[in-house]
């Protein structure tokens, strides 16, 4: 068992960065101020966030479920259909009316069409990155990469993931990790940047795992003791460790040492018994609920996302697939070029659309039923759309010039469309929106000022987002 892949986000050190200048932070004070339930774990973060967030905004959503559609779903075949365009543009799929008049969607999503009055579409998202990694990083961080590099190299001077920024500026105070992402590290030849905390520091990395929630034996290594290490043995080790730590004043004199010590309590609780374990336990869901989400990795991941936000996680990222896909009818992402005789309109009706059709409406309905809908923001998006003109392989290629992003949750206008594309879905017609603006919109929804600055490793101040699309909020 290797635990290193699991990333935990709770920050206690780097006090300078946090604005906690003194290294003398008495443990009892930390506990008192942080509240017993938190064991003081988040205190420095809360103090820091208070100083860092420029002006408090109204918090419209308490949490975000970010469903990342790796590979790039086609806007024209799903949520921005062009029935009046020439055949080589409109494609073989037909629109059907949805519950919202004048908002038709793809005929293969009849169930979703009944939920369109719960979502908001932005049909004018655009950028210039045509490669998966550069566009993927752009979509996952809201910041334009330095170049349109097909193998954009991940490094600490690139921007952090949304969830890491949220953890840095506005951490969860529930005792749960702020940000959780799963069940894949996405890559296209090389790992796509934008999936971790980057220059904000490893302490802000999302809690990440690659285990499959659809696996019957799904559980996390972080929540399980290795063989040969019983709970009582772990407690014995901790007792001896504490005996040694009592001999010096290090715990009194160093905030970093105190923070490190508190992590032991937390780690041991998680390894033995903890509400975190319960949040990840899908067996506590009924069979019917599990079936309703679909017995797929994506379906069960979305179910897990609901459990996680229910227990206090603030930002959940679900990656649809690990690879860009496009060549298989039972796995992979949305990248359907039609290469090697694997045609787009054979793949998406058999794979991507049915999964989406089963899972997305279920998630929305479940959130409604559990009273989570009103203060949750759901974001469904890929790194780009697909070419309006069908290619020689009877499929579509990459199209960042204009595509659609779906938002849902009580904070956004329901059954609303913002921005529009031209008659072929090729360029934004009105109200163009950049990924920077989209990032700003997410932060804005969470009550985080998009003009807040974060600092790179060499202390360069960078603004977290562009201009929020405030018109979409209810």
């Amino acid at each position, binding site marked *: 068992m290797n635990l290193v892949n699991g990333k935990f986000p709770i920050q206690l050190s780097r006090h300078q960065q946090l604005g906690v200048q003194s290294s003398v932070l008495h443990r009892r004070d930390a506990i008192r101020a942080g509240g017993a339930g938190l064991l003081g774990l988040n205190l420095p973060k809360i103090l820091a966030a208070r100083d860092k967030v420029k002006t408090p905004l109204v918090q419209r959503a308490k949490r975000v479920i970010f469903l990342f559609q790796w590979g790039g779903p086609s806007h024209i075949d799903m949520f921005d259909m062009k029935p009046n365009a020439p055949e080589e543009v409109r494609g073989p799929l037909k629109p059907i009316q949805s519950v919202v008049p004048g908002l038709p969607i793809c005929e293969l999503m009849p169930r979703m069409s009944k939920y369109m009055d719960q979502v908001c579409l932005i049909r004018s998202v655009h950028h210039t990155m045509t490669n998966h990694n550069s566009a993927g990083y752009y979509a996952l961080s809201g910041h334009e990469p330095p170049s349109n590099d097909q193998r954009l190299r991940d490094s600490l001077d690139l921007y952090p993931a949304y969830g890491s920024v949220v953890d840095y500026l506005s951490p969860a105070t529930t005792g749960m990790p702020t940000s959780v992402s799963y069940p894949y590290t996405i890559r296209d030849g090389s790992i796509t940047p934008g999936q971790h905390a980057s220059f904000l520091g490893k302490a802000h990395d999302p809690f990440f795992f690659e285990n499959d929630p659809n696996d019957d034996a799904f559980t996390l290594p972080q929540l399980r003791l290795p063989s040969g290490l019983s709970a009582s043995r772990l407690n014995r080790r901790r007792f001896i460790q504490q005996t040694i730590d009592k001999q010096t004043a290090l715990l009194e004199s160093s905030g*970093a040492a105190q923070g490190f010590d508190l992590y032991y309590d937390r780690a041991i609780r998680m390894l033995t018994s903890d509400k975190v374990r319960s949040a990840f336990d899908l067996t506590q869901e009924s069979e019917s609920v599990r079936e309703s989400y679909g017995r797929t990795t994506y379906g069960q991941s979305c179910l897990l996302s609901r459990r996680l936000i229910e227990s206090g996680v603030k930002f959940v990222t679900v990656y649809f697939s690990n690879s860009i896909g496009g060549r298989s009818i039972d796995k992979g992402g949305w990248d359907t070029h039609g290469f090697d005789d694997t045609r787009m309109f054979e793949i998406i009706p058999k794979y991507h659309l049915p999964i989406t059709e089963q899972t997305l409406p279920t998630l929305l309905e479940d959130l409604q039923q559990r009273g989570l809908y009103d203060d949750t923001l759901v974001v469904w998006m890929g790194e780009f759309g697909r070419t309006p003109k069908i290619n020689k392989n009877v499929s579509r290629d990459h199209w960042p010039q204009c595509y659609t992003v779906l938002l849902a949750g009580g904070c956004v206008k329901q059954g609303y469309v913002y921005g529009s594309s031209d008659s072929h879905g090729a360029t934004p017609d009105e109200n163009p929106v950049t990924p920077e603006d989209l990032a700003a919109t997410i932060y804005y929804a969470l009550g985080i000022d998009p*003009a807040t600055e974060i600092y790179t490793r060499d202390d360069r101040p960078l603004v977290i987002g562009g201009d929020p699309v405030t018109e979409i909020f209810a």
Partner: protein
Amino acid sequence: MWCMSRQFLIFLIAISCCAEAAHAKRPQKQAMVETDSRFAIEVQSVLAKAGCNAGTCHGNFNGKGGFRLSLRGQDPSDDHQWITRDHAGRRINLMDPAESLLLAKPTGRVSHQGGRRFDEDSLEYQILFNWIACGAPAEADEDARLESIDVLPLDVVVRDPADSVNISVLARYSDGSSRDVTSLAVYEPSSLDVEVTADGTVIRKKYGESTVVVRYLQKQVPVRVAFVPRVKGQRRIQYPESANYVDEHVFTKLKELGIKPSSLASDEVFVRRVFLDAIGVLPTADEARAFISNDSPTKRVDLIDTLLSRDEFAEFWALKWSDVLRNEEKVLDVKGVEVYHDWILQSMKENKPIDQFVRELLLGRGSTFENPPANFWRSVRTPIARSETTARLFLGVRLGCAKCHNHPFDRWTQDDYYDWTSFFARIDYEWEEKRRDKFDKNEFVGDQVVKITDEGEVKNARTGVNAQPRFLGLHQFADVKATGTDQRIEELAAWITSADNKFFVKSQVNRIWFHLMGRGLVEPVDDFRLTNPASHPALLNALADRFVSSKFDLRALARDILISNAYQIGSDINETNQNDELNYSRVVMKRYQAEVLLDAQCQTIGRPAKFNGYPEGMRAVQLPGDRKVRRREASPADGDLFLEAFGKPERLLACECERSDETTLNQVFILCADDGMVDRLADPNNLLKQLADSDMSNRAIVDEVFLSALSRFPMDSERGVAVAMLNHAQGKEVDSEYRSVTDQYLDDEVDRWVVLQDIVWALINSKEYVFRH
């Protein structure tokens, strides 16, 4: 009528007619205010004071709300255009100045995302109002320019009960005039320990030392302010005696600040610290025991001399240099990484003078496999990457900001940036383009030849014209022949590594100090900047002089630092030093770096960690590169994963800042329950098993593992608990004092080896083990 002259008097009451709402509440202030209407001086200072041209507001590259200003007002003529011409000129209203958006927005009369910036009865308002009323003139050629600002005080110690100090700022102009601009200057404190009012009063929030940067238009001056508590007996503080010049500087400052340092570290603390700092290796139990029991009065200096001559010293410094020289496999190839590391290691072993070492790097060319220093240029592929990296590593200057605009916190202009960068334009590579992944342009496989070409220029982004080589900080262009094949780089190497180059000498000294003391005199180490002064400027100079006179001898300088009492200071806290972070009044505490911590654990347990692609037994500090075997080729070994989680840098940034010493919950999981640790502890071939199987007494075993982990004997309570547990495990009698402990914590089946593993786990996880102290 007002604008008969450019300087005039106005009556406040006249303005108030335009602002009726504010009228009633207006305090009875001065009846008359003298302002003038010069754009570049008056208007720009208001836009800065109110924060309008800050990077988060309109000074952002993309502006805000459709209104853009140059960052911190560096470009007055551009700003004038934006204010007067853009937005159909609606930002100003010459007929009715009060209706100008430029006034309506910041006063909150019209909704403004940035909120209310000033009131209608403020000086800021008057200045903008007058300027508009005068027709919003642009800067005129005959306008006086700002020449300099005089700031007082520059360095001040404020003793309790005083809790504030006033800064005053005098501006001097090109026409010989001067004026008090205290209320128009911008004040930026470096920490939350102080607060500065708009009119320059620095108020104590916490005792300690802070820097306040005072900015007026394009001039900046740092002010150091120390707030010192009054503590009983402060005058009678005994300071350690000075071992050398280092101590004189450090203790003089502590005296001035009334800070009592911690007492000197005990032998036990010292031996552990100096081993780990100097050579990155934990002392063995025998080494610790020998040092502690040695009663020679010179034993500390003797130990330092021994350590400086050990190979591990060179290995540790090869690691530090490899980090910042970007020695990693993807760009340099596995072979390149190995030859480069060998060359660096050899240079450190033979104590190559640092100026020579740097010169060889800068002059490196030819095959990167045959001539290892050529990897320096191989690792930085564009003129900009080369110029920024060179400035950062060898001059301690972060130039990056000046690429797109004048450096906001320093004196570097965009012209400085591009003129400097033009030195780096004439380097090219010859190589056979073969890649493992044809789409991956960031990877280079095989050998490359670094060559100097006789053409290649860099365009200044501001002027659009080719820049000419000019050294940083010098006004005249360098004397390089445009056609000489490698003239630029040779001139550059000579200039950088000259003993007269203060940037070079100080930055190298500071880096060495940082690695031994845990904090740079200038911090971050590669950020020498007008607005980031050294904590001990005179000490920095003294170290620099010493470095030059010793002919750039790393070991000689390291020795000066290590033998000082300042290095040997302990960690105990008193009333006067508890808030001190800058002055070495107590040890700089930080988590040991990834490689050192892992090597230490492996030594304590007696089993090595595994690193993919390297033979068993190799220490983490000795690893030449980042990662020899890619993730996609094989999943990382336990050692690789440990290093990643504990912050070993990927070596892409050429910055000490890439290495992280933060602590994370994930690290604790690794220490508690990861395979690597679990397996090493339970490995029957480890040292613990030998001890458990030996006929040593439990007491002797406990002493041994404490010495080997913490370089000290156990305290009574520690020994009591550990021996009792071991006794219990062997079915021996347990001291009655510890019976409740064994009853509570030994409820499972255990033997001596199992309990010993638990004791050693606890030692490895103690704060004393993990944190420098």
